[in-house]
């Protein structure tokens, strides 16, 4: 039996990993402490490894990463959101890694072309989720300042979370079950961190969610310009 790679699905999942990897990489040289800088860079490298496999399933990885225009990217709007303060980065990590772990766990137990990658990546992502949860607990249940910032971050990114559960063609998983499991997991972490679970819609007119269709938020263009300028200025550059 030959498996057909669903290019659109590989692109969407690959773009999620690539864009978040780049955002996390932006912390290099800026993280609050050296130890955390290495932790974030490790997570970024895990994601970059996943992106390389996924984009290679969809075409030439370098062309896809460095030569596509903004509207051709299929990542969730959540992952392109700016790093903000450390709490924003942690909230983004909490929302995304919880989703990615559930998704990869299902893909790993299936027999699609994504199964081998998912089986390897689900262990990496389990660590990403643990990292985000540990920090959520400490910032939420920490000082007044950290609690205030973490609370603001969770609230600000909440409206980007509904988009994660729009079914993707070619990704055969139980999306509704995943949404329920995601909510349960995130709510549990927020409660243990003594934070209020954000209110507000996660889907519908006032929420974000057209990243999968190629519509992105304002800061994404700037991020892409920075990510792509070297390759565009010096095509095929290497060292």
């Amino acid at each position, binding site marked *: 039996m030959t498996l057909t790679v669903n290019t659109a699905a590989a692109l969407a999942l690959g773009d999620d990993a690539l864009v978040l990897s780049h955002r996390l990489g932006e912390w290099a040289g800026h993280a609050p*402490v050296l*130890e955390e*800088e290495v932790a974030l860079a*490790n997570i970024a490298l895990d994601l970059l490894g996943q992106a390389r496999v996924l984009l290679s399933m969809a075409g030439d990885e370098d062309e896809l990463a460095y030569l596509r225009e903004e509207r051709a990217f299929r990542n969730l709007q959540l992952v392109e959101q700016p790093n903000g303060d450390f709490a924003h980065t942690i909230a983004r990590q909490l929302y995304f890694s919880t989703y990615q772990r559930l998704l990869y766990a299902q893909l790993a137990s299936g027999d699609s072309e994504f199964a081998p990658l998912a089986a390897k990546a689900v262990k990496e992502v389990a*660590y990403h989720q643990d*990292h985000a949860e540990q920090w959520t607990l*400490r910032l939420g249940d920490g000082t007044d300042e950290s609690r205030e910032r973490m609370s603001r971050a969770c609230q600000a990114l909440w409206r980007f979370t509904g988009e994660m559960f729009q079914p993707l063609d070619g990704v055969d998983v139980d999306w509704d079950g995943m949404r329920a499991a995601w909510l349960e997991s995130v709510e549990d972490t927020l409660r243990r961190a003594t934070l209020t679970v954000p209110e507000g819609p996660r889907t519908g007119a006032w929420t974000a969610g057209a990243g999968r269709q190629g519509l992105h938020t304002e800061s994404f263009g700037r991020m892409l310009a920075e990510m792509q300028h070297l390759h565009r200025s010096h095509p095929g550059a290497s060292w």
Partner: protein
Amino acid sequence: MTNTDWPLWEVFVRSRRGLSHTHAGSLHAPDAELALRNARDLYTRRGEGVSIWVVPSAAITASSPDEKDPFFEPAADKPYRHPTFYEIPEGVKHL
């Protein structure tokens, strides 16, 4: 990269089963759980370990350099304490 008020932790890594934990270095972390995770990220990212211990640096009692002579020198001229005074029987390979 400013200094923080976080305490210092010593990290010990066991490289594989059967070996003992060896001192790998130190790091800053707010508590033991995060020290363990920082240690994972700093000292086992190239597959160096299967187990990690973290110990607050403040909990370690160390010998003082000033006591070097009374501590260690008396052992220097007692070669009979080394197991080098017997013949190794023929055929014993892994001694």
